[in-house]
Structures are given as structure tokens and as C-alpha cells.
């Protein structure tokens, strides 16, 4: 189903992967387990022969979620809840929901209460990452997830199955990393929309199949070097809807680096296959880069962003703010100041699932990049 897709197919599917996932489950008889972002060790779910799908909201109208989560809840959480309550809930046999902030903590409760007949497990991510106890805890949670999935499926997880799943995930990350490299060095070869569609779909469909498509896409690329593109670094948690990438393409921007949870933070998650696999999965958690709900120091984020900006010789930073995400909102003013002080041009893009105005985003981004060209920033 996903092994021989071309770039165009990928872009189309990434907009709405669910019909194809439905078909795939009918064909294979496998069950689907959904997770919101971030940091669920999905390799474990995959190793139980289930299909882990990262939920990244829906663009269909909000109908039910609003009566569970008020309008000052982050739009990503509301959108994901809507996706499950109104549109695709029946596709999933279960959910593993990470808790990283107050919103996600409530979201898992609401979700569990809304789906009493389904398997719903919480993955309690640590909200500190600098002390030994955090390592202890991540390992503990991974082990708890393994045993919880074992109880639900009635299966025992073998080391070989876990190693095989990790290898498939690692391969996915590796190919995507190579494609990113191509995009960076050969701007114009892959558009922003196409690249981030590959990223997104990787997190939602069967990777054993999709890796084949990705390899073929990579091998078939005709390298181009468009000089007229402006290199930028994208900072934030996630960037949606996909039309935003269309806007970047229209404005002739080339994303050469990012800190997104469904971007580089996903790519960095390669897991060592040497030694104890649970330890390796736990270690991975600490090598992922800054994530505002977990890390305590926004200056780490600044250092990371600064390094990316200089290493990639980018021209500007675009910060993607998800409306009502408190974690971002407490960090943003200081991050902005630090970036400004460093003299790096930065544009904040406000996104909100369901209600985002694309023309507004376009106009504001246009104005920013025009001033950038004119040297006014």
C-alpha cells in the first residue's frame, strides 16, 4: 500500500492518510494504535505487530471536542480529540497518550473516559531531563508500556521483535535525514511541502513499506540548485496545516533546519541496537533536543537555534507558535529577546488548527521577507 509512492502521492496522502490506513488494516488485519506528540517510544508498539500512528490533528470542523476542552486549550489538543471523537475513532483499537503538559494530562483522562471500550494508556513523560531520576523514570515508563501492551494483546515481546522494529524506525530516520541533507544542499530539488509530507507520513503509516517509497524517491531525485531560495530555520513544536509549507514554497524559502517535534526531534531519535534495548530507548529520550514542556532552560533552545542558524548559514528564523500552547508562551518572549539580541531576524508565525487564516499568514510572512531582503531587519 505504501511501498511504491511517488512524491505527489506522498503529498496527497499526508493531507489525509486515514482512508489508506483503513484499507491497510482491512488488508493486513492489523490493529492501529494512535499517539499524540511527543516522545512515545512507538517502536515498542510496532514490535507488538500493531501500527503506531502519530495523531497530528484534523482540518475537518470542530464538533464535539469543544464541549470537552474549552477554547483556550491548545488547538492541537482539541483538534486531535476531534479527530478521534468525530472522524477516525473507530479506526483505532487503542491509544497511547503521552503527558507532557497540563493540557495533555487532561486530554488523556478525557480520552480514556470517552473511549471506555478501547485500550487507552498514558505515557508519563518526565518534565525534567537533567537529573538521574529522569533516566530512571523514562526506563520505568517504557517497561510499563511494554507490560501494558503485553497484557492488552496477550503477547510477550521478544527482544528480536523489538530490535527489528527499532531497525525499521532507525532506517526511516536515516533516509529522511539523507533527504533533508539533499534538500539543504540542493535547494529546489524537494519542496518544503514535499519534504514535510514525507516526514508526516513516516509518522503515520507502516514504515517497513514506506521506507521503500522513500528510498526510491531519494534515488530518483534530480538534483537541482536553485539560487533564488532563502534558507530559513523553523523553530517550534509542530507546523500545521500543510498549506503553511505551500506558503513557504511560494515565498521561495528553503527550510534547512528545524527543531520541530515532528521534524528534527524525530530524526534524532535513532536508537542503538547494541546492548539492552530498553536502556537504548530510554537514552534516546535525552538526545532529542529542546522541547518546551520538558526542558527547563529556554536558553538551551536559543543555543540550539543559534547553532542551527549559523551552521546552516540561514537567513532567518521562523518560530511556529501554536495558539494557546502555554509552554511555548512562557518561553517565547525571552527566546525572542535572545534571538533579537543576537541580531538574527525572526518571524513568529501563529497557527491554530481549524481556524488559521492562511491569507493572514501569507501577508505577514511576505512583509517580513520583503523587509529582510530590503535589509530593514
Amino acid at each position: 500500500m505504501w511501498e511504491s509512492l511517488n512524491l505527489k502521492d506522498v503529498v496527497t496522502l499526508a493531507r489525509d492518510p486515514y482512508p489508506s490506513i483503513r484499507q491497510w488494516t482491512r488488508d493486513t488485519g492489523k490493529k492501529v494504535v494512535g499517539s499524540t506528540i511527543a516522545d512515545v517510544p512507538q517502536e515498542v508498539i510496532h514490535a507488538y505487530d500493531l501500527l503506531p500512528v502519530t495523531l497530528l490533528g484534523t482540518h475537518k470542523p470542530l464538533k464535539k471536542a469543544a464541549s470537552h476542552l474549552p477554547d483556550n486549550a491548545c488547538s492541537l489538543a482539541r483538534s486531535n480529540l476531534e479527530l478521534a471523537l468525530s472522524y477516525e475513532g473507530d479506526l483505532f483499537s487503542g491509544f497511547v497518550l503521552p503527558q507532557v503538559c497540563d493540557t495533555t494530562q487532561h486530554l488523556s483522562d478525557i480520552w480514556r473516559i470517552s473511549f471506555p471500550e478501547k485500550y487507552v494508556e498514558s505515557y508519563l513523560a518526565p518534565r525534567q531531563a537533567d537529573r538521574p531520576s529522569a533516566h530512571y523514570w523514562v526506563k520505568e515508563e517504557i517497561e510499563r508500556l511494554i507490560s501494558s501492551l503485553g497484557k492488552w494483546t496477550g503477547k510477550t515481546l521478544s527482544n528480536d521483535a523489538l530490535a527489528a522494529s527499532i531497525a525499521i524506525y532507525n532506517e526511516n530516520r536515516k533516509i529522511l535525514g539523507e533527504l533533508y541533507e539533499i534538500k539543504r544542499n540542493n535547494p529546489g530539488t524537494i519542496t518544503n511541502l514535499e519534504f514535510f509530507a514525507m516526514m508526516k507520513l513516516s509518522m503515520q503509516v507502516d514504515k517497513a513499506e514506506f521506507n521503500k517509497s522513500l528510498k526510491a524517491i531519494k534515488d530518483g531525485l534530480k538534483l537541482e540548485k536553485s539560487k533564488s531560495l532563502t534558507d530559513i530555520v523553523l523553530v517550534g513544536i509542530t507546523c500545521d496545516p500543510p498549506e503553511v509549507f505551500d506558503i513557504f514554497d511560494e515565498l521561495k524559502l528553503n527550510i534547512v533546519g528545524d527543531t520541530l517535534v515532528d521534524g528534527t526531534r524525530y530524526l534524532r531519535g535513532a536508537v542503538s541496537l547494541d546492548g539492552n534495548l530498553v536502556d537504548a530507548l530510554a537514552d534516546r529520550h535525552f538526545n532529542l533536543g529542546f522541547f518546551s514542556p520538558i526542558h527547563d532552560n529556554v536558553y538551551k533552545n536559543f543555543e540550539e537555534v543559534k547553532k542551527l542558524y549559523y551552521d546552516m548559514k540561514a537567513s532567518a528564523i521562523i518560530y511556529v507558535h501554536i495558539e494557546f500552547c502555554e509552554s511555548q508562551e512562557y518561553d517565547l518572549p525571552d527566546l525572542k529577546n535572545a534571538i533579537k539580541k543576537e541580531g538574527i531576524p525572526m518571524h513568529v508565525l501563529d497557527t491554530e488548527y481549524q481556524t488559521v487564516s492562511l491569507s493572514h499568514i501569507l501577508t505577514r510572512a511576505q512583509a517580513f521577507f520583503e523587509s529582510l531582503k530590503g535589509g530593514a531587519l
Partner: protein
Amino acid sequence: MSEKLTSKQLSRKITDEYMEDAFHAHDNGKLVGYTTAISPVEIFVAHDIVPIYPENHAVANLTAKKGVELCSAVESMGYTSHLCAYARSDLGYRKTGVTVTKGIPDPDLFLACNAQCFTLTKWFQVLARKGDLPVFVFDTPEHIMNKEARKEIVKYCVLQLKELIGFLEVQTKRKFDYDRLKEVMKYSAASSILYKKFLDMAQYKPSPISIFDELIGMAIAVYRRGTQECVDYYQTLCDEIQAKVDQGIGVLPKDQEKYRLYWENLPVWFKFSDHAKLLGSYGGVILTSLYVHAWSFDFDLNKDPLETLAENYVNRFSNSTIEDRADMAMELFNKYSMNSMIMFMNRSCKAVSFAVPTLKDILTKRTGIPALVFESDMGDQRFYAESQVRTRIEAYFETLDRLGLAQKTAVA
């Protein structure tokens, strides 16, 4: 000597002495630690770190209607208007110096416990960045319903409390005294029992206290846990309320107490006394909320202090699942014979409010009592629509009357 003081005088005395100590902490070789209202402050007390709760200071300013001024100031710094009003008013205070109290001393370090909310962690991080000060995050994963997981959560929290002690030893260059901690725990355990006894006096009919008394009465439990004076205060308070009970004195006279209400969430601070009067005019008394019970701990002095601390701080209502919150609220409904409920959707406090719609569904189903739901903000008056709230309250009591839910003892 203190036996002669009333609870009100005692509260003032304790508070004055505490603030005096806080402002002179450095002169006395002590550090000032900012901490969250729900945090294992017993460790601070045992290590002679003066705990300061920016939330309390925020409450004073918000109650005195300084919310809009302070919040606007911080919004001009780039913070959005939907962050917690405590955080906004505190950051506003840092910028403008505006306060109705003498302010609070600057911090040397921070302890952020997220059993209450994660907002506080982020807010403290903002403050810490300004002075490049250390923040210790005491991470309390949700107290999910799986018993095995709970044991692991407690283990994780005990590990962190040990790390906290190590952190404080480095900051103060002093060894931590576990015997002292045991002493402090004794006071905390004793005052918690008395504090709970005080809250539970709302069981009586008529109730001698309303939530408004409790909100005032909880202050010492919040900031002086772990001290002898805290125990003394609650003993005095319980004695005073018991005397009222003995004389049959209620917030409302017995024949007028029609509606014994449950309140969900924090109060609307700047409407505090207005709400008491308004509800009273309909024969309503708010008896309790999970919020005020957040400080009635159940410390087990036979256990390792770190273990009982961990157990108690992870299982607060604000860190519990919605199902457990509903059970906790049901227990209060039954114990206090409540016959009505107000569910406040507080825009400021996402940590409490995002549970409210689901909790309301569960509680109305389980009690068969309709709920009044209203949305506003605990501290930012810009989100409070006076006439709308009044109309809703009026309509709610009419519904209750129509349903014949008034207490039988009250004059209809």
C-alpha cells in the same frame, strides 16, 4: 500567651512574623526559596529555607482588584492574556512594583512541584532566567489509577526528593538534617488533621463555615505547614468553630439554609465577598471544594518521611485523574449533604478547569443534581461579565426551587 489570641489575631501574628523573617532571611543567614502552594515544603522548613509563595502574593493583589493593571503590564512585555492570572500579575509586579502588600522578597532558588500544575514550573522558569537562579523541578506524574504504576511514581518521587535534598545542600553548603525533617513532619501531620477537621465542620446544619471562611482559613496551612504555630492556629480555629456549632450558629440561620453548594475550582478572588452575599440572598452557602482540601494531607509518621511526602504530594486532587476527582467530590457531597453545585470554568487555571466539563457530566449523573456552569477568570476582571453571572445564578436557584431540591429544614 498565644492561647488568648483569636484565630484572626493569631493568623495576623503568624503572617507578620513569617514575612518579617522572609524579608530578613539573608541577615539571618537563610535563603529564600520560591515554591508552589502544593509542594513538599516540609523539606524547606527542615533546612531553614524560607518558603515564599508568589501565588499568595498574587491572590492579595487580585483580590484587591489589581488584576487588570498588573496583567496589562505583563502583556505589553509579550506575554499573552490567557496565561494564569497569578503568573501574569506576578510578572506584572516584577515590572511595575505595584502591590497592595509590602511585596515579597526576591528569591535565591525555586522549587516547582507540578502536582498542582505545570504552569507554575514555566512561570518559575521565567523568574529564574531573570536572575540566572536555580530551579528544581519536582516532577509528579499524574496519579493514574493503576496501582503498580502508583508505586513506581512514588519511587520516582522519592528519588527526586533525595535529589532535592542534595540540591539544597549544595545551595546552602549545609548538611540536611533528617531528624529535623521528622520533627517538621510531626507538625505537618498534626496541623493537617486539624485543618481537615476545620473543613469538615461544614458538615453541620446549619454550616458554621462557608468556603469563604475556608479560603481565609487555609492560608496558614499553605504557608506555615511544618511549624508549631500552624498547629496552634488550627487548634484555635477549630475551637472557635466548634463553639459556633455548639450554639447552633450558622453562616445562614438554620431555617434559611436552603442550598448547600459544592464549588468546583478556585474562587473568583475579586468577587469573593459579593458572591457570598449574593448566594446567601438565595439561601445558598458554598460548603466546600476540592481546592480547599488540597492541603488536608494524610501523612503517615510511621513511614519514611520522604515516602509519605511523595505519596501525599502526588495524590492531590489536581494531580489525580478525572475519575478520581469525581470520587473525591462525591465523598464530599455525601459527607456534607450538598444539594447543589457551581462549576466554575476558570480561564486562568487550565490545570483545574480542563477537567471541569467532564467532571460536571459525571457529578450531575451521579448526584442527579443540575449544575451551574459559568466561565470567567479568577483574577482578571476583563473576563467577568457581572450581569450575566447574576442572571445565571438567579436562574439556577429558580431551577433548584422548581425541582424541589431545597433542604427540608429550610423555610421554602
